[in-house]
């Protein structure tokens, strides 16, 4: 893991020096992960492709602004792609269909709305802190994160008043932070 981040850092440093070969190597290295993320977020190939393009154009121009306070190189680059996807979703007002199941049914599922494996992996990454949240807090946070739902859409999807959803997210995030800081 560490050596991968070192390699990405090396490539990113090259990109900051306008090294096109480093840029291409970087693209080969992370475009699959980035495209997977964009696609997951918006559920539309065309928009995901556009977000991926925009993100790499941005990385080319802004690679020099990366520094270690911003997280690992991969995390920084994926954040760029995620924000770009969010912007495009909002600008186009597209709303992805949420997998196979209609949103209405999500709230009833004990296991929560996300693919089980994804949730487990996410939990592990957040050192188990997500597990300490209530099911509603965790689901509303993960739905916001992976499905880019607005508070209003979330309230509708979870069939819950808007104020309740907002406080799930707010309290969930703060509980997450307390847990992460331990």
């Amino acid at each position, binding site marked *: 893991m560490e050596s991968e981040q070192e390699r990405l850092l090396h490539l990113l440093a090259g990109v900051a020096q306008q090294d096109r070969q480093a840029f291409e190597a970087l693209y080969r290295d992370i475009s699959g992960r980035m495209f997977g*993320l964009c696609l997951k977020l918006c559920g539309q190939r065309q928009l995901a492709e556009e977000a991926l393009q925009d993100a790499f154009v941005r990385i080319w121009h802004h690679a020099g602004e990366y520094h270690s306070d911003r997280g690992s190189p991969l995390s920084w680059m994926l954040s760029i792609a*995620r924000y770009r996807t969010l912007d495009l979703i909002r600008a186009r007002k597209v709303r992805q269909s949420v997998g196979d199941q209609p949103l209405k049914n999500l709230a009833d599922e004990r296991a929560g709305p996300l693919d089980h494996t994804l949730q487990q992996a996410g939990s592990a990454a957040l050192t188990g802190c997500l597990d300490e949240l209530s099911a509603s807090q965790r689901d509303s946070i993960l739905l916001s994160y992976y499905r880019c739902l*607005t508070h209003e859409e979330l309230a509708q999807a979870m069939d819950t008043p808007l104020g309740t959803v907002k406080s799930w997210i707010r309290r969930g995030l703060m509980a997450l932070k307390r847990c992460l800081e331990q």
Partner: protein
Amino acid sequence: MRKTPERIERLAAEYVLGSLQGLARRRFERWMMESATVRREVWYWEQHVGALNEMVPQRQPPARVWQNIQQRLWPEPLPRSDVGPGRDWLLGGWSLLATAAALVLALVLVQQPAPPSVRVLTGAIVQAGIEDPLWVISEAAHEQRLSLRPVAAQAAAPGKDYELWIVPDDGQPLSLGVVPVGQVYRVTLDEAARQALGSSQTLAISLEPKGGSPTGAPTGPILHVTRLYEL
């Protein structure tokens, strides 16, 4: 709104999550510009919650994405030199028959095939009583560029210029600059222009004082309005 530590903490988390939206999101982005504390709080969340990003299964993007990135960062030089020495001369001698210009046009189009499955807008500006189109328009979405190729267009009256506009679905026309007659006019579309054109697919040409509209909106008569089509 005051930047209390509690508020920064909460808003940063919601910013990264994406649930902070619209005006509140824009306002928070200004906070980020102003304050290192706010930025650090955002980075904190990006790092921690960002771990979720890395858990999503990989998907291989199609090859055209990389081609498009290269096109955007390092656009191909104009194909002028590829066409051979005759072309500049042809375009320079604007008094030539429109059919000759149309031949050049065909040549250029063949030389620049658009990659498949990239949306391309095309159209023509025509005038009743003139057999050939005045201009032929093509947009290469992957290049974010619009080209206007004069065919039968005549120079504007002395002291006047033609100005090209995007007519959006609603709101003011967006200027794409003054169109020189006698050469291919290429204009790069910014994001706003691309979106407006992608949605309305409508262009207009107005007659303006030399150098273009002084106000940023059309001031002279609208000579032509045309709708583009997707190829």
